[in-house]
């Protein structure tokens, strides 16, 4: 079930009401939330609820076994659990990719075709709940989290707002909330409705428009489009993927907030970043932090020689790229950002060594740094979005040699791209004023305002919503 659907609106109205009625009763509340979340997950393919249950069981038993163990046994138990969880992810997400590449190598070496090529269906959300399950077990191993009761772990991993596409919420963040009775008289509805409305507008209007009318036609036939169209498609994709993904997680955070839960922020104006390191502090923050805490730091983090740190960054970004999809284009994208991070880190160190400020100073320099960073990020998105490496390079060549008319470059396309970027530069107090105005209205007026906002979104959006990009991750 996806958020911007009538099915979900009805589902949420029922779940919202029942869960608040059940709040005084912890056991029934948890049982109901598990049921609701599993129904939500089963909506697209009921068979995969067994996978979710299997991941939950592995994480729960692993946590229970890791907690009392000591020494090497503790470490071995933790690793066994993590490998089992990654095994499920690997089978469903990476088997096909691995098998094809192994097959092509063995075939080229005349070793036959020893690996069966199976079509494994990718369950939605598996990358997200697997990473959450891993963080749960590793946090217990590190001693920062107690093993939770089975029902709590089940709610934690299946809680429907984050189930399909995050944010990746840690056990340390969500489990205490699951174990705490929430206050039925303190629902932060102003922030929640804002997140949901803004998320819907980004997802249903901006992302769908750009994907349908600018991005998809150009990426489908790169050879057929002019330089200006290719440029608009690349910029358009940068706005589309931001609107699509941040919109979806904004809705998730808002829905959780309506039920009394607080999720971590996932996007913080990413296209205002002044360098790639800054970008990763602003883009898909819960994944960045997950990779930092469960991959980069265990690899050694910032400790060690400069070469070792560069190695750690590259491994982290390569695997981060592969997390997004089983394809070489994602690996290239990860490597690109890894190299960018390493270069950025060395340039920063060199500036400090020369006695200069680590970051650009002055409005002109900051503006230039933001402009350059956005273009660098866009170049990465080109490889991320292109179907093949050949298509990506074809688009780059069209940027230089693609003369001709540009029917896809319309004032509306330009407006959508500018709006997507400019929205990240709006001063905070504009939003504060708008929300304050809303907060001070009477109930009927508030409902009316939201109804008109919803009408505007559904009217301006296409009569169908473009596929959600991160759905397949």
């Amino acid at each position, binding site marked *: 079930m996806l958020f911007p659907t009538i099915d979900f*609106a009805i589902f949420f*109205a029922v779940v*919202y*009401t029942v869960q608040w009625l059940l709040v005084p*009763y912890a056991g029934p509340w948890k049982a109901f939330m598990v049921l609701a979340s599993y129904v939500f997950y089963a909506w697209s393919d009921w068979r995969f609820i067994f996978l979710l249950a299997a991941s939950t069981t592995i994480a729960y038993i692993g946590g229970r076994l890791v*907690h*009392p163990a*000591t020494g090497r046994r503790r470490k071995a138990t933790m690793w066994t659990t993590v490998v089992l969880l990654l095994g499920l992810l690997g089978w469903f997400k990476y088997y*096909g990719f691995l098998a094809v590449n192994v097959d092509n190598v063995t*075939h*080229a070496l005349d070793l036959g075709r020893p690996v069966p*090529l*199976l*079509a494994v*269906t990718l369950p939605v959300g598996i990358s997200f709940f697997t990473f959450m399950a891993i963080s749960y077990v590793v946090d217990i191993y590190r001693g920062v*989290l107690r*093993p*939770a009761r089975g029902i709590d772990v089940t709610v934690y991993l299946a809680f429907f707002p984050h189930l399909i596409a995050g944010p990746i919420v*840690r056990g340390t963040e969500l489990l205490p*909330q699951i*174990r*705490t*009775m929430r*206050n*039925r*008289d*303190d*629902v932060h*509805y*102003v*922030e929640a409705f804002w997140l949901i409305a803004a998320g819907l507008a980004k997802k249903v209007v901006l992302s769908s428009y750009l994907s349908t009318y600018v991005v998809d*036609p150009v990426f*489908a*036939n790169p050879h057929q489009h002019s330089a200006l169209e290719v440029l608009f498609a690349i910029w358009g994709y940068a706005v589309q993927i931001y609107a699509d993904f941040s919109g979806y997680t904004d809705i998730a955070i808002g829905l959780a907030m309506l039920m009394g839960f*607080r999720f971590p*922020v996932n996007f913080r104006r990413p296209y205002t970043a002044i360098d790639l390191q800054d970008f990763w*502090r602003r883009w898909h923050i819960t994944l*960045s932090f997950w990779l*930092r*805490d469960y991959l980069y*730091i265990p690899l050694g*983090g910032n400790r060690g020689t400069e070469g070792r740190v560069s190695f750690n960054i590259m491994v982290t970004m390569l695997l981060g790229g592969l997390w997004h999809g089983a394809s070489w284009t994602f690996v290239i994208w990860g490597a690109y950002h890894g190299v960018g991070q390493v270069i950025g880190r060395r340039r920063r160190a060199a500036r400090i060594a020369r006695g200069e400020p680590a970051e650009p100073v002055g409005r002109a320099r900051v503006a230039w740094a933001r402009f350059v960073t956005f273009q660098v990020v866009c170049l990465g998105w080109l490889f991320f979005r292109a179907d*093949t490496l050949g*298509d990506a390079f074809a688009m780059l060549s069209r940027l230089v040699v693609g003369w001709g008319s540009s*029917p896809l470059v319309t004032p509306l396309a330009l407006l959508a791209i500018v709006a997507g970027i400019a929205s990240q530069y709006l001063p905070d107090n504009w939003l504060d004023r708008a*929300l*304050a*105005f809303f*907060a*001070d209205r009477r*109930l*009927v007026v508030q*409902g*009316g305002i*939201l*109804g008109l906002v919803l*009408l505007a979104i559904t*009217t301006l959006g*296409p*009569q169908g919503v473009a596929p959600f990009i991160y759905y397949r991750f």
Partner: protein
Amino acid sequence: MPPPSPTPPTPPGPPRSPGSGEGGAPYDWSDARSGSRRGGAATVTEHPAAPPPRGGHDDFGDHAFWERLPYRGTTWTRVLAIGLLCFGLWFLLDAPSLQRSAQVSPLGTRRTVSLDVVGPVAALSRTLGLSSVVGATDRVLGRTPGGGPSLAVPVHRSKPKPTPTPVVVNGTTTTTTLPPLNYHPTPAMPLKVLIVGDSVGLDLGQPLVNALAAYGDVSTYLDGRIDTGLSRPDYFNWPAELQVDLANQQPNLVVVMIGANDPQGLVTPTGSLSYGEPGWDAAYSARVAAFIAEANAAGAHVLWVGMPPMQNPGLNAELEHLNSLVQAQVAATKDNGASYLSSVPALGGAKGVYAAYLPDASGAVINVRTPDGIHLTPGGGARLAAAVTSAIQTQLHIALVPGVGGTGRRT
């Protein structure tokens, strides 16, 4: 502008435990047993108010979101009332659009229930004149209110050349209503290909545009519409769309790949026919025949590409049946006006069954189908496009000459 809400900002940290204010909770939310069943070997410092662990790498920035919640919370019932008001107003204003969406959805219980629920509200909305808000917006945006899928991908590739196709036969020039099938496209007499299809047809169409771009004196125009077919002209009217495309593009070859959405109830002028019901096959076949006749009447030959094997056995059986209906209609077309190309040789595995992986021209294995087991990957589309290109040459005997100047050229 009223001043901001006077409520002070909520203090940082995850939500405070509100249990004390509720009084007499029938169930204990605390989890005293947790972690103590086996006796912990490690000291655990977790606390409900504990912040997320910090790794000591502060250059990644701050992680907390809930540090700033400046507006006063309210009761869950008040929020429910606001939400219901919001949906109620939206429902009333948008009911006519929702009613049209329900009308064009697949036949079945869900459609019936939706229409029963939305119908009275839509009538009320029209009576009160509220529906004009959405209607006016649709007009401003240049859309037909509720008129079919707007997530369509019409790809313009060439300007129309509104001239009948001249054919040189034994030294004399004549004009024919049917396309020439044994000729060499020339600048004066290009091969104009119109590609129409549903979402699977789009998977073929986009690589086919690229494949034909390698040949001189060939122009292409792709009109693909996701979620469409011949079963539900009330949702998207393909015959009407074809009419417009034929008039604008003047093609001499129409490549059709439609059908993946068609095993469903047909809406007919006299009612509806469920898939599998007696009469369904005849009604669907008549639509296929009419579609072909429409193209033929405009002077275009039809190359109908059948649906490939599907992963789902039920859908596969249904589409095999549809393929057989189309094949029969193609065979019955007069004056050699249509040809059929099975996509099984290009996309089927051993014994023609569904295959997700197939070798490409170099022998390397590629993934040809998307994870849904229905659509084609770009590699799969390219494979089928190569088969179509080959069929144009060998089956239709149209001599395609490699060279620039065809599809890719914008005229």
